[in-house]
């Protein structure tokens, strides 16, 4: 048998930080054969990206590596730069998570592909251009010749990722290393990119090393799986072994934490469905427009949107990026002015309220933001951040305020001593708990949760969702839960509303939407969600491709 494309033995990466060597990946052993996909999965900080970058010695200067990395039988670990450059791009190509930052914004995508080609092959500009257009066509970007001269910002997120794949494939690499290639994309686009990668793998017989945290993507793509935790290999086996017969408790925990679409039981409504109480919030024909700025024309982000949320229920608002869900969430509590329609919160019309009235109404609302790093003031200890709304409302001061802050920290299961910490000293999940504590400081009637878990690892997300459910059943607030992740919405919500291009496409009871979607867009959205089960996912994929 010939050599595998990538063979990694006893491979260890350590980083020198403040006088100590910190291991980031310990004693890794794996190999990838041509035409196969090995997925490395793990949570953030598990060392999966470090492992991938280390294969081509693309690590920071404070890293040291040991062991052996062989590409097609040639040792590349410790090779000099000239040798490495011959491998990089030509034999081993990378696809990164964020195509907008991985592509150079001042060059056209065509130019960037031509550059890669001419670095490795002795070909003229015309010839390279022909080949580049061929590649752009291969990754299914519409109008390859026209797209050749486009800059990255003129393409959509999915097209940018395709352009980057085209660049990676320019030299027919034997090994493609894809580091979270679809994390920044919407599910429908993700499904297309994964289809594309699968097609190219069979056509070019490349080996793929896939780095991801998404078990659904793994189930969709991987032949073999390597599970990492804190730099160590936890489990390594075929896709079937890992998904169906996981041995290690961590693998089981990881799989258990992944939310699965349609796996939750029916949920009782917190109110009598036939005689509904007065809604906490009622949005009627709401239209939000971002006014024109200079030459950028006015943009209607939300159009004629209707939604009611009743006391004690969670309504999931789903849609792809740019569909206007965040705008709805912010407009609902008066953070963005609305152009038409009315918003009614516990009997007060906020579209006509003065600043002073708005301040009073805001005591009834709270909001949790998507990015826990940006939603807390980096220069304030978290205790002050949590206490701020209470102080602003004039409810407590001094020692009484301290006690309330302690109670809030307790309620979100954070130690009281964390009060003195700054946001960056907390993990993402802890920061998001602080965000919740702050939003619930005034025991609001309505909580807007804007993608609160999208920046979190699955196990952290699972605990966070549990906490949110606990708090919700205890405090009985109404909640608008905005998410792009249908599986998460499935776990939490009583009802679901689906948005597309600023309009409400469909709304109704959770089971009605997820099991019997009426609108074709909802159907497509649900079909595109990868299920963390290889066999089932293969069936879903076949069904999706057949319906195309």
């Amino acid at each position: 048998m010939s050599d595998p494309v990538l063979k990694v033995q006893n491979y260890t990466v350590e980083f020198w930080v403040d006088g100590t060597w910190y291991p980031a990946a310990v004693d890794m052993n794996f190999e990838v054969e041509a035409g196969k996909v090995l997925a490395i999965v793990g949570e953030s900080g598990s060392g999966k990206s470090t492992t991938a970058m280390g294969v081509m010695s693309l690590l920071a200067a404070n890293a040291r590596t040991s062991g052996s990395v062989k590409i097609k039988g040639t040792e590349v670990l410790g090779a000099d730069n000239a040798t490495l450059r011959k491998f990089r791009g030509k034999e081993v190509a990378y696809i990164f998570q964020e195509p907008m930052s991985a592509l150079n914004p001042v060059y056209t995508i065509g130019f960037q592909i031509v550059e890669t080609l001419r670095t490795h092959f002795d070909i003229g500009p015309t010839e390279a251009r022909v080949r580049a257009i061929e590649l752009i066509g291969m990754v299914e970007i519409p109008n390859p010749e026209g797209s050749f001269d486009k800059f990255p910002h003129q393409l959509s997120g999915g097209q940018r990722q395709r352009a980057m794949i085209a660049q990676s494939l320019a030299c027919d690499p034997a090994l493609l290393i894809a580091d979270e290639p679809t994390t920044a994309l919407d599910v429908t686009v993700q499904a297309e990119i994964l289809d594309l990668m699968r097609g190219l793998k069979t056509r070019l017989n490349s080996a793929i090393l896939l780095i991801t945290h998404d078990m659904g993507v793994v189930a969709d793509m991987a032949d073999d799986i390597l599970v990492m935790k804190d730099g160590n290999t936890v489990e390594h086996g075929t896709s079937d072994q890992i998904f169906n017969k996981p041995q290690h408790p961590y693998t089981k925990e990881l799989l258990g934490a992944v939310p699965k679409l349609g796996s939750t039981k029916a949920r009782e409504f917190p109110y009598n469905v036939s005689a509904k109480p007065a809604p906490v919030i009622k949005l009627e024909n709401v239209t939000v427009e971002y006014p024109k700025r200079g030459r950028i024309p006015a943009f209607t982000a939300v159009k004629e949107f209707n939604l009611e949320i009743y006391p004690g229920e969670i309504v999931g608002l789903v849609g792809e990026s740019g569909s206007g869900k965040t705008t709805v969430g912010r407009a609902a509590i008066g953070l963005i002015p609305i152009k038409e329609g009315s918003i009614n919160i516990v009997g007060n019309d906020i579209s006509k309220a003065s600043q002073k009235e708005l301040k009073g109404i805001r005591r009834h609302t709270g909001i949790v933001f998507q990015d826990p790093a940006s939603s807390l003031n980096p220069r304030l200890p978290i205790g002050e951040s949590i206490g701020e709304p209470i102080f602003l409302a004039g409810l407590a001061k001094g020692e009484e305020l301290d006690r309330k802050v302690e109670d809030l920290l307790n309620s979100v299961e954070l130690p009281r001593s964390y009060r003195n910490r700054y946001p960056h000293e907390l993990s993402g999940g802890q920061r998001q708990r602080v965000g919740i504590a702050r939003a619930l400081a005034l025991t609001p009637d309505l909580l807007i949760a804007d993608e609160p878990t999208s920046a979190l690892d699955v196990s952290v997300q699972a605990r966070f969702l549990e906490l949110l459910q606990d708090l919700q059943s205890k405090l009985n607030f109404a909640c608008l839960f905005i998410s792009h992740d249908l599986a998460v919405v499935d776990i939490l919500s009583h009802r679901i509303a689906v948005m597309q291009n600023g309009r409400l496409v469909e709304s109704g009871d959770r089971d009605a939407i997820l099991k019997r979607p009426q609108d074709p867009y909802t159907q497509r959205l649900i079909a595109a969600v990868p299920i963390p089960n290889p066999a089932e996912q293969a069936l879903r994929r076949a069904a999706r491709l057949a319906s195309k």
Partner: protein
Amino acid sequence: MRTTDAKSGAELAIRSPAKIAWDRLRANRVAFYSGFVALFFVITAFAAPFITRVMGLNPTSQYSSRVAETGIPFGHFGGMSLGHPLGLEPGVGRDLMSLLLYGSRISFTVAIITSIFSIGIGMIVGIVSGYYGGKVDAVIGRISDFILSFPSVFMIVALVIPLTQRIETTHLARDNGARIIVLIIFFVIFGWPGFARLVRSQVLSMRERDFVMAAQSQGASGYRIIIKELLPNLWPTAIVFLSLSLPGFLAAEAVFSFLGVGVQAPASTWGLVLSDSVSYWQQDPAYLLIPSIMLVLVVLSLNLFGDGLRDALDPKSDRA
């Protein structure tokens, strides 16, 4: 997780951001001692009359007996002795230490007042134009463009004399006092727009961050957001700017005194001493070297202290 609560009460005690910053500053040796050096210069400047009286010296007395006919002081290193620790001024033979001490009073006063005013104005204007944006921002932006595009050195040289006369006619101040006021006014006028721009760009990026929106959603007023959310994030910029602008204004005062539009003899400033010493650098190098070294010391210590202070205020640097 809750078990950490059982730990000592020390961890539970509320440590204010100021206390944390102070602890960190103390742990940073270089910054801490630089702070002492800077403080030493400031204290000696303001205690100048006291020090000179104790030493039995006077900045205006001419110790001509200690200076040769060529104008060069007797003895090594510009005539250093117990009575005149830093030697004598060549020519008329005034005591160099008293000259520098009294000179630093004027230099520091100019530098501190101008820095504080430029940073104060720049901070307010920058926050207002960054936070409120729109027309306010446009108007302020054009005004600062206008000021920044002025040939400031030329303006100051040309206008100091007529403006000084104008101030003298109001009987507010005379001679050097009037010239110092004019210099300060000019330095502030040309100093604030640079800092205001820095603040504006920071506020612009911060305004889009979620924590500002979070504060809005809690019903915080614009004033409260500026004070509580924005200002703590702007102090570090102000401190870095201060540690750069203080020595900058020290040097600027020296330059303009050197050019003859600042403070004039018989008063002295570091700039005047330096400009005078240039003509003696071959015969009496110590006369040039001593004020130069002191200027470098002050500038360096202020810069290092400013750096340390910024690190201490940055929650992301390591905890003490």
